[in-house]
């Protein structure tokens, strides 16, 4: 027995370590991203308001724990711990029924928890609900006296429903299975009670709808907090939810099968090895497809634009959302010219998401608008990002709202969100810094606000950055030619689509300022005055370096003689090569 316990602990320890590694390696930034979609408030009202809702206590716990996901390792440790607890509680529950001690079943109890690896959930609300349901079932199964157990069953289902729906569903199912499977129960009353428990679990939400709550049926059964209420319940909800009763029934059916390994020691070694191999395989192959963009989003959230650039310098950009952050990071750090042609450009949508509605799209649109100094748009996308989120809160975008309201001198609106954020654990530090900015004079004297105000649009126009990017950018640049990020973005857009006429118009303005021109700009100017407008006098007024010019001259001499491969090898990084040989991204239809 002692050996078995040790083996059991080893299995759970392995699973815990595996879970930690799986989520830390593959989902670290995903859970930091998801942290933004809950907002735990340190107020009595927050607690009491949630307690009045179906499954509200579960949500309270979820948001309380989730707020710490901004800290290193917390999400991975928490989820690994919860999944291990689920496995332990489930194993203990099964042990209560079957008194098994064979190796086969020990590994089987990990299967439902493994499903959370295959279908990682957005918030831990579902994990907590499952754990609560299992704990309720285990508590039920631990009561020896039948009558007390029956009464406790009905109470536990009711309490888990109110506090942690849909925990009551697995709880009721497992209680039913317990009654049906245990041999100590008098069969007749056991079946009756199990049916009663199941019926109570099914009827309870309907009773609640008619007595306590005015809510849609889905919310009455499953609570509104587990998944975004506007979308269908994910299939993984059913897979995971049903896995516990199905597995319980499966174990019951297989209870009399002989173990795979007659030699217990050999069985243990095989089990541990099998678990280790499976764990390593899933960790290796289970990468989140969007982990790169969530990584960049995390860096953007912390204003670490340089680090995004460094990462992009070393790693390929994997998707269009990551490309938006890469383009923005380069433009904001003044390096867009060197990266424009290197990045896998896709056109408009690589600069800003088109008419965004997704979580990521709205955040990106707000970030782009903010750095381009289109404060109204940054505010608008932040606002829509907040209200369309699952819980109608998004602290990161709420912070952006405060910033935009401060820039736009809407102090009362800024204070509204500051009052909310100051009741949080991790955002209140920002708020305490901002409170003094509610004084108009202090705000005006604050450098970042003064800079934003100085670059705010002054010419009203109805152009939406996400729908008519070039028009909106043109207004931003025309209003403030010193709006560097907007300027880099705008020139990048023009060069990408080979609009050299418009590009030269802005270069003439830039020339007047006496600023040095980037190599990319110089190459484009060389091309323009060679291929479009033959005006040597104007051309020589641009500060074109001799290196750029001689390379361009060499290109002109060799373009007809070199093979395409050699030409690409020698000049593939130049704008004139791009302009002549590379197909630009498709223009968006408007």
């Amino acid at each position, binding site marked *: 027995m002692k050996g078995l316990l040790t083996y059991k602990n080893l299995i759970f320890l392995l699973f815990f370590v595996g879970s930690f590694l799986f989520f830390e390696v593959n989902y670290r930034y995903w859970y930091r991203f998801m942290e933004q979609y809950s907002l735990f*408030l340190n*107020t009595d*009202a*927050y607690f009491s308001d949630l307690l009045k809702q179906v499954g509200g206590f579960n949500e309270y716990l979820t948001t309380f724990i989730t707020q710490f996901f901004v800290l290193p390792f917390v999400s991975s440790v928490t989820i690994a711990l919860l999944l291990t607890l689920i496995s332990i509680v489930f194993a203990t529950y099964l042990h209560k029924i079957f008194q098994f001690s064979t190796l086969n079943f020990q590994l089987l109890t990990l299967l439902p928890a493994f499903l959370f690896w295959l279908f990682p959930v957005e918030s831990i609300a579902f994990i907590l609900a499952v754990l609560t349901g299992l704990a309720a079932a285990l508590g039920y199964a631990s009561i020896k006296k039948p009558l007390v157990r029956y009464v406790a069953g009905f109470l536990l289902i009711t309490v888990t429903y109110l506090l942690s729906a849909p925990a009551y569903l697995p709880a009721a199912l497992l209680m039913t299975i317990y009654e049906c499977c245990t041999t100590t129960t008098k069969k007749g009353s056991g079946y009756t009670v199990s049916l009663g428990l199941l019926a109570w679990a099914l009827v309870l939400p309907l009773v609640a*709808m008619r007595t306590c709550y*005015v*809510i*849609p049926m889905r*919310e009455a059964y499953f609570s*509104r907090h587990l998944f975004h*209420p*506007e979308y269908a319940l994910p299939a993984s909800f059913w897979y995971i939810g049903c896995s516990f009763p199905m597995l319980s029934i499966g174990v019951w059916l297989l209870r009399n099968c002989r173990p795979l390994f007659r030699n217990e020691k050999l069985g243990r070694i095989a089990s541990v090895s099998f678990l280790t191999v499976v764990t390593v395989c899933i960790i290796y192959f289970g990468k989140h497809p969007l982990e790169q963009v969530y990584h960049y989003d995390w860096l953007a959230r912390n204003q670490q634009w340089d680090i995004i650039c460094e990462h992009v310098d070393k790693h390929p950009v994997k998707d269009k959302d990551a490309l938006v952050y890469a383009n923005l990071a380069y433009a904001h750090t003044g390096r867009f010219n060197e990266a424009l042609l290197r990045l896998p450009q896709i056109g408009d949508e690589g600069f800003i998401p088109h008419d965004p*509605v997704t979580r990521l799209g709205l955040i990106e649109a707000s970030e782009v608008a903010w750095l381009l100094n*289109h*404060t*109204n*748009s940054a505010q*608008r996308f932040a*606002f*829509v990002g*907040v*209200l*369309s*989120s699952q819980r*109608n*809160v998004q602290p990161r975008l709420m912070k952006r709202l405060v910033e935009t309201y401060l*820039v*736009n*001198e*809407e102090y*009362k*609106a800024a*204070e*509204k969100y500051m*009052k*909310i954020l100051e*009741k949080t654990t991790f955002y209140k530090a920002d708020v305490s810094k901002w409170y003094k900015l509610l004084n108009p004079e202090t705000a005006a004297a604050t450098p970042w606000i003064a800079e934003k105000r100085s670059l*705010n*649009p*002054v*010419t*009203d*126009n*109805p*152009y*939406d950055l996400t729908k008519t990017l070039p028009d*909106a950018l043109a*207004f931003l640049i025309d209003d403030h030619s010193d709006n560097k990020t907007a300027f880099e973005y705008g020139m990048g857009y023009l060069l990408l689509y080979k609009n050299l006429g418009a590009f030269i118009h802005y270069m003439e303005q830039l020339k007047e300022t006496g600023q040095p021109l980037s190599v990319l700009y110089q190459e484009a100017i060389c091309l323009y005055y060679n291929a479009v407008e033959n005006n040597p006098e104007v051309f020589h007024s641009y500060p074109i370096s001799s290196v750029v010019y001689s390379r361009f001259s060499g290109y002109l001499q060799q373009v007809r003689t070199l093979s395409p491969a050699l030409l690409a090898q020698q000049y593939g990084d130049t704008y004139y090569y791009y302009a002549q040989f590379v197909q630009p991204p498709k223009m968006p239809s408007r």
Partner: protein
Amino acid sequence: MKTANSLLFFLFCLLSCTGGKPFGDIEMRNESASLFPNYADVTIPPNIAPLNFRLEGEMKACYATLTGENGQVFSYKGTNQIILKPGQWKKLLTGNTGKSLSVTVSTQSRDGRWTTWQPFHIYISPDSIDSHLVYRLIEPGYEKWHIVGIYQRNLETFDEKPIIKNDMTGYNCMNCHSFCAGDPGLMMFHMRATYGATYIVSNGDISKLNTKTDGTISNMTYPYWHPSGRYITTSVNDIKQFFHSVKEKKMEVFDFESDVIVYDVERQTILSAASIITKDAFETFPSFSPGGEWLYFCSAPATQMPESYDSIRYNLCRVSFDAAQGRIGSTIDTLVSATLHSTTFPRISPDGRFLMYTETAYGQFPIWHKDAETRMIDLSDCKQIDMSVMNSDDTDSYHSWSRNSRWVVVSSRRDNGLYTLPYLVHIDASGHPSKPFLLPQKNPDMYDYFLYSYNIPELVTGEVTVSPYALQHAAQTFPATQVRFE
């Protein structure tokens, strides 16, 4: 020694426990405490829920004494909130109707010192307010919404119940609830997108209507009931919006075109003879006079939109309405000419004496116009009444009258400039408004964390009893009846 210590500790506790009352060297201040909501010197109805409030600033404790003119005294303590007991509050209201309450507030600073602030007064009007307020809760916003619902709040308590929520109907948009003369049994509202239709609830019977016809440019939009309950006048609008780039403005909602129509509820027909369908003018936001003999509306000369969005101004007009024949007269009177400002939301007091409307620099949708203010005309002499007490430096827009014409609820963004909140205002017999006060809540901090606007607050005389599930069932299963146009 141990006994002496215990005795000293007991004495200390005894001295400390003064029931939360201010004690020691109390500083008397000749200035008012900072309250939220600011209930100082407001006029309230005798049937309003307790005016719970919060004291602003850092403090260890607070204490308030409410003294009625009839001698009743109730005291409350808290950390920074004063939460009144409903029973005692009711006694104060009934015992002092037509009189004032004096409220003395004291606060204890972190170092233990008490300050007593200058008392303020609350005047209890003998005029009751309609018992319920119906409003839509929606994120103030741009082009998107998430969870929307039409709710009713019992003004005499803190009870709030949903009438219908969009999470029961596929997260569609629902809007423009309207009641016939404040009758909770006769209401209508629209749903858009999923289950899109106009819903009319008449004493529990629910009708679902498709109101777009070949003769009208859109579904019914901004409605108002005829007092007989037989007709509903609404505008039909081709609505668009755009977003500004400059910090002074947020967004603009405007009509490409609009008309005013009258819908016959009994015959399920839009009456062209009672409608104002013109190509050379935009008509919108209609309402009937309390007697039903006049149809008020806003009208502007048709112009190119959106180019003229900031120069279009709406006149406030009226035309006679013959309810028996279901037709309008031929002469349109202009009551307020839009020379400098634009008018919108005309609402006549139920006694027919006052015409309240909203004035803004341009357009007819003032929710994002900070300059929007409430105006009122005394129809007995057609003179403007000074409404400056009622207005704020932020948007003041929609308004609804109580049945006795003595109370108005007005939508205002004065609290934070973003979320519209309902303020109640007493209007005396000669039309003068009192200081508005914010709809009281059980927890005065509630507004701090609340992320919804109170949209279209309508005062009604009782509880709307139609079940939300019945409305949900109607939306999901009833076929929409096509209304006719003749």
